[in-house]
């Protein structure tokens, strides 16, 4: 095939075409013959070759005509005149956003300098929305808050949505259209692709393929449908590495149709999770966390709690909340689920050993006792059979319509994504695909390794990729289009229950990014159509009730389109016995390990007789980088992963027993120690003929004989932050077993690797830091958290300070805290906390003002896990204030422990004397004062700290002052709930409550009056303003815990 000159082939990284050989003799000759001064810019020009002319033509196609052929005086004047006129026109361009511009000459009604505005939009992840309100300071978005109106948020957020603001400002984002690695333009792209498209149109789109991530956007789906109508033989594929294939396949297995399952955890008394990490994964994690925690609040007068049973392989935040947890390798979970189903009377052949069967008996009795108020949830990574089984179990337990709701699927086209990708790869291999348009995603990096996506991709004559970054996939593409971040574009998206949010841009695209809508519109022939019009026109066409303008404004204002949530749907479960088991097995993963009710004991029992070094492997999205899309986000890189507390790296997680069997060891580094660096053995995983070298990491509570790998790390084209961090689990993740598989061999390779771990110490050392009891113990003694503990010493030589007016305080409910990290990132975003990098973390110098301590208790094989968020305690009797020689930290009359950065000389005495170790020091110049794009991101109300200065949690004093000023203007007191610290606002479970403890009606004051309330280390007489509510668990009395 003749090489396509318009789309130079980049393999694997685009290279500049070889320079033509210089003909020095002819150059000399020409130079000799020329008169006067002749400047030359490069050898190519000097040689005046054909190639050079060609190059110039490519670079400046419009001007190339007039360039060489000489310009007459008339032409020159004409050109100049036109340029001048065009320059004038250009100055008329409306910024910051094309659609609605607001002049500052006459101050607009809404915008008061210094006063932020909040705009509703939604954070998309896996195609699903979390409604957010974005704080905007004079046109610069600075902070994400949850949207209280939005069903998936209810005002809270998760760590990813909090961190997404940093991604938007990321200086490493792709900034220009690139053609084979060279800077090009959007127009050049349109020009270039038009011919190919024209050819495709003639052929009906046979060679046109579009690959997207999961799409729920009604407008985008409509555009895609239009495109498919225009190119009837084109195909639309969807692929994301974290997909819900199993879920959909299971639905089809159980119902024969696609459904969307919602859980009403606020009504569930008993919850059974079959490897379902519903507090972290899935489209409704934030909402589910809220609902789940609402049933775990025990306050005076109400001593009822839900009960959570979790069966899982990898310790998850959901598992950490469990009242009963069983660690099983993932392949044994289907069997275990079968055993539970069998006990419930479903005719499944499955068995469990005697000890387990007792456990199952108790569980089933508990479930059946609470018929109609239970929920059985299957994990996304479990095979479809388990999902089908969960549906049947929910039916059998009478949960449908009560705690389990079925609706239409939210995806515009709920295909099996792996199958979809397979099909695409096959078409690429056969040469059918002529144009591949990849809207977002990074399939070269994330696709299963055995599909050979990148290899087959090279066979496509024209490949286009749009993305936020010039990533691994862009490197393989002819064209790279910078994608607009969700905060920069109009769009729409559905939440887990179908509710639509219209995304509105907070800022014009920083780097000229194009939205998928814009690209598709261009393909549809409307290259000039603004995304705004595309989205708006779609909704105009929907025949909304009433006046469209009113509807539009309301939808934008509220952040939800009213009445778009799906109605519960009655679906008929297939009779249990006669299911055609193969019918739902459309995805590759389910073909091999499809669980059916009839043969529910699959090949999994062999793990019992496993010999030698063969282990099971589980693949999971990374808790902070997810599938790798956040690899260049410093906040998420440095965020200690829940439970394992690793930053900047992933590792192969194994149980203590397995580690012992394999002889895996670790060593705590002498610099940083347990709060810094841990050296662990590097191991080589050999799996299906591929190998991967990763450091090992021992996790209490992990299933034995199983290793978990988080994928998302090991990026090579992520950006300055993400490149070279961690190890690429995709390198051994195959299409046959995208979630888990057996037959991994592990070999120690004899070297050690330094991991950055912020908390390696597991035990509480018998100290009463997290006070815990069972619900039963609580009923017997509601004051257990205060009894039998060290009391605050009585009396003082000096009279205490009387806090008139406000007295700020915080209450943190340890029972409700799921350890999801949303508060940590929210704090980082609100307070412009610096990222320090892996090396500094290993030295014990990370800067988080709020950290989540994790402690284990009990058997390391399956311990109880406790999370304890630790912000500054704002001690009334603060040890830090006493010792500061310059008074840089002092107490306010409202009880805040204030930090005066300007005055700080950096003795670090305060940090030493802080018993909670919440103070953070700028050992170096950590804050980035240089990068221009990061400057507008920072909260303008918070000082950016420089080298040599101490910092710490301020209770978001900037927010307190804003509310106080507002209240003073209205001559009233600050109302309860008016001030929410960043952590308080972000917390999905409302575990963190802030307020005025002098106001007896305030939520925080009531919580502090609760019998569960206790202060940390009060025996030191620090009188902390941050106090905790003791942890309660609700174990089944029928099950004896170890």
């Amino acid at each position, binding site marked *: 095939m003749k090489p396509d000159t318009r789309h130079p082939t980049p393999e694997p990284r685009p290279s500049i075409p070889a320079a033509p050989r210089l003909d020095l003799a002819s150059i000399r000759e020409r130079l000799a013959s020329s008169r006067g001064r002749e400047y030359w810019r490069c050898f190519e020009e000097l040689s005046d070759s054909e190639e050079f002319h060609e190059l110039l033509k490519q670079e400046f196609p419009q001007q190339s005509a007039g360039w060489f052929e000489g310009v007459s005086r008339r032409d020159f004047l004409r050109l100049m005149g036109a340029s001048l006129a065009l320059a004038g026109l250009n100055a008329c361009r409306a910024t910051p956003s094309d659609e609605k511009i607001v002049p500052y000459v006459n101050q607009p009604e809404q915008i008061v300098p210094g006063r932020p505005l909040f705009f509703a939009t939604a954070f998309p992840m896996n195609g699903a929305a979390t409604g957010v309100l974005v704080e905007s300071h004079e046109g610069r978005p600075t902070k994400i808050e949850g949207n209280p109106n939005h069903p998936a948020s209810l005002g809270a957020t998760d760590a990813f949505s909090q961190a997404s603001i940093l991604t938007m400002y990321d200086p490493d984002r792709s900034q220009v259209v690139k053609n084979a690695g060279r800077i090009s333009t959007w127009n050049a792209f349109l020009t270039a692709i038009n011919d190919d498209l024209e050819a495709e149109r003639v052929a009906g789109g046979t060679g046109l393929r579009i690959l997207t991530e999961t799409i729920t956007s009604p407008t985008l789906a409509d555009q895609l449908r239009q495109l498919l109508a225009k190119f009837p033989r084109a195909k639309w594929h969807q692929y994301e590495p974290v997909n819900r294939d199993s879920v959909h396949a299971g639905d089809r297995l159980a119902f024969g149709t696609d459904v969307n399952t919602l859980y009403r955890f606020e009504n569930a008394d008993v919850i059974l999770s079959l490897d379902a990490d519903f507090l972290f994964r899935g489209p409704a994690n934030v909402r589910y966390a809220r609902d789940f925690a609402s049933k775990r609040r025990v306050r005076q007068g109400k001593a009822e709690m839900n009960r959570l049973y979790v069966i899982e392989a990898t310790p998850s935040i959901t598992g950490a909340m469990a009242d009963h947890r069983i660690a099983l390798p993932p392949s044994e979970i289907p069997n275990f689920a079968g055993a539970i189903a069998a006990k419930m009377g479903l005719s499944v052949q499955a068995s469990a050993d005697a000890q387990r069967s007792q456990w199952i008996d108790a569980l089933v009795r508990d479930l059946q006792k609470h018929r109609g108020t239970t929920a059985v949830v299957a994990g996304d990574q479990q095979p479809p059979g388990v999902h089908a089984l969960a549906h049947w179990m929910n039916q059998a337990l009478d949960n449908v319509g009560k705690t389990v709701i079925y609706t239409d699927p939210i995806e515009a086209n709920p295909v099996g994504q792996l199958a979809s990708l397979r099909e695409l790869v096959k078409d690429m291999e056969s040469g059918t695909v002529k144009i591949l348009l990849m809207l977002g995603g990074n399939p070269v990096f994330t696709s299963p390794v055995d599909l050979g996506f990148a290899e087959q991709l090279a066979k496509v004559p024209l490949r286009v990729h749009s993305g936020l970054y010039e990533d691994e996939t862009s490197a393989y593409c002819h064209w790279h289009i910078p994608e607009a971040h969700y905060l920069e574009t109009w769009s729409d998206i559905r939440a887990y229950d179908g509710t639509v949010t219209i995304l509105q841009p907070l800022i014009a695209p920083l780097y000229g990014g194009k939205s998928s809508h814009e690209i598709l519109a261009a393909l549809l022939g409307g290259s000039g159509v603004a995304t705004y019009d595309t989205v708006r026109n779609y909704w105009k066409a929907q025949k909304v009730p009433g006046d469209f303008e009113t509807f539009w404004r309301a939808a934008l204002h509220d952040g939800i389109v009213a009445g778009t949530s799906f109605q519960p749907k009655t679906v008929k479960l297939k009779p249990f016995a006669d299911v055609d088991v193969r019918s739902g097995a459309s995805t590759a993963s389910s073909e091999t390990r499809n669980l059916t009710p009839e043969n529910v004991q699959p090949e999994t029992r062999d793990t019992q007789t496993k010999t030698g070094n063969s282990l099971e492997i589980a693949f999971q999205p990374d808790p902070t980088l997810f599938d790798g899309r956040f690899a260049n986000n410093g906040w998420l890189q440095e965020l200690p992963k829940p439970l394992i507390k690793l930053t900047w790296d992933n590792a192969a997680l194994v149980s203590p027993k397995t580690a012992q069997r394999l002889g895996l060891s670790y060593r*705590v*580094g*002498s*610099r*940083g*120690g*347990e*709060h*810094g660096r841990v050296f662990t053995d590097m191991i080589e995983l050999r799996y299906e003929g591929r190998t991967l070298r990763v450091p090992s990491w021992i996790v209490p509570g992990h299933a034995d004989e199983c290793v978990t790998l988080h994928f998302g790390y090991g990026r090579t084209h992520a950006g300055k932050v993400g490149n070279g961090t961690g190890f690429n689990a995709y390198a051994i993740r195959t299409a046959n077993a995208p979630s888990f598989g057996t037959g991994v061999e592990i070999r120690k390779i004899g070297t050690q690797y330094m991991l950055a771990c912020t*908390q390696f*110490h597991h*035990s*509480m*050392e*018998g*100290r009463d830091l997290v006070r815990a009891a069972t619900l039963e113990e609580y009923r017997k003694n509601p004051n257990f958290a205060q009894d039998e503990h060290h009391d605050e010493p009585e009396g003082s030589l000096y009279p205490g300070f009387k806090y008139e007016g406000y007295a700020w305080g915080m209450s943190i409910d340890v029972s409700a805290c799921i350890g999801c990290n949303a508060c940590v990132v929210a704090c980082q975003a609100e307070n412009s906390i610096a990222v320090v990098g892996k090396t*500094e973390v290993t*030295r*014990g*110098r990370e800067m988080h003002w709020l*950290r989540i*301590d*994790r*402690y284990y208790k009990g058997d390391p094989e399956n311990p109880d896990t406790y999370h*304890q968020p*630790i912000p500054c305690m704002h001690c009334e009797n603060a*040890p830090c204030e*006493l*010792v*500061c*020689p*310059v*008074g840089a930290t*002092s107490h306010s009359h409202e009880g805040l422990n204030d930090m005066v950065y300007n*005055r*700080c*000389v*950096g*003795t*670090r*005495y305060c*940090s*030493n*004397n802080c*018993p*909670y*170790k919440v*103070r*953070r*020091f*700028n*050992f*170096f*110049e950590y804050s980035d004062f240089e990068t221009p794009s990061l400057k507008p991101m920072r909260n303008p109300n918070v000082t950016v700290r420089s*080298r*040599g*200065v*101490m910092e710490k949690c301020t209770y978001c004093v900037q927010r307190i002052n804003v509310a106080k000023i507002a209240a003073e203007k209205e001559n009233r007191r600050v109302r309860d709930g008016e001030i929410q610290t960043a952590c308080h606002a972000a917390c999905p479970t409302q575990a963190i409550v802030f307020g005025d403890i002098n106001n007896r009606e305030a939520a925080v004051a009531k919580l502090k009056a609760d019998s569960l309330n206790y202060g940390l*280390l009060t025996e*030191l007489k620090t009188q902390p303003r941050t106090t905790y509510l003791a942890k309660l668990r609700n174990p089944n009395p029928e099950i004896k815990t170890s």
Partner: protein
Amino acid sequence: MESDQLNKSSEIEAAAPVIEPGHTFASVTDKISAIVLTHRTPRFWYVGFGLSFMLVLVLLFGIAYLLTMGVGVWGINVPVAWGFAIVNFVWWIGIGHAGTLISAILLLLRQKWRQSINRFAEAMTLFAVACAGLFPLLHLGRPWYAYWLFPYPSTMGIQPQFRSPLVWDVFAVSTYFTISLLFWFMGLIPDLATMRDQARRRFPRFAYGILAMGWRGSAIHWHRYEMAYLLMAGLATPLVVSVHTVVSFDFAVGLIPGWHSTIFPPYFVAGAIYSGFAMVLTLAIPLRKLYGLEDFITLRHLKNMGEVMLATGMIVAYGYLMETFMAWYSGNIYEQYLLWNRMFGPYWYMYWALILFNILVPQMLWLRAVRTNVVALFLIAICVNIGMWLERYVIVVVSLSRDFLPSSWGMYSATVWDYAIFIGSIGLFVCLLFLFIRVLPMISIFEMRELVHETEEAK
């Protein structure tokens, strides 16, 4: 000669001389002033000065790097925010205790044997305090604002926070330095006059002349001098106790287990004297040998200093014992854990090395044979120097590394820059000492003459 002395050990007990017999006023003056004025500068001086000056360069480089980059170049982190800098500070301050103790307290107690060692002990004090003073400055995150710790009339209207022990430190250390300097200089005045009179060349005569401040040795001069010197001694005496007491407050006021202890002030003062005497011995033994000053710094001096070391060492040992006892007796789990952590935690070797160097090895001083053996004394003194440094390391670093919340436990390990500045400070100390013995009489001439006079009279 030493073996002779050993044979006559019974006599040492009774009335060993503080100056060897046979000296006259002139011989004393000649012998001591000649080291500075007429003898050729010995080769070891050049070697020693050169080596120590190289270490000073290391110090300067370390400081330059530190100021450019920030204190992050050290191994400190969040649980352990103080490292070598504070360890070295306390160590140097401790060393700086012997000089004033010898000059002031022993003067008031009329211990005549002090007269041959007080001069360079005082010099040592000054240099040690100078070294110590470096560290609190350098360890600041923003050292250019160090003056904020002083109560100067600020346009911002802000004063230091007087409840902080660090502010007390500023006063204690600067007062101590001032008094030590004045005391040392006052003691030098009659000798400077002697040097002026002895000097042949113009410049030394001029320089010593200026420094001697017109001392003519008249009876009035002597009368006033003695009074002033006694008064200064009276002023300096409480400082010996107060400085290290205040330094110990840096820790005792804190509430970290291992810091929060009322025993700290006496224990620190004893430790300071202990390390001070160890350092005097460390310096005196080679000096008397190299400059042939065995006549003036006799075995009796060494023996006495050994005894002081033994006594203060026992107080320090008692301090350790009481810490252990109180940890058990208090029933406080944090204190108990701290002790366990010191003994068996990741820094266990530091603790046991400290016990070995500070407690076990000096027990040999109970033996008279050891107390009068110069080499043994020298080795023990070195051990105590190391031991006292380790003690500060254990107090500062080990206590901080594991405090109340196990979640924030961490570790500290010194970096090359920690070592550079520490070793550099030793270099500075030694370098200053070499300069001192080169330009000033290292033994008080007039006080030695007094001794000659008194010995004569005693006959």
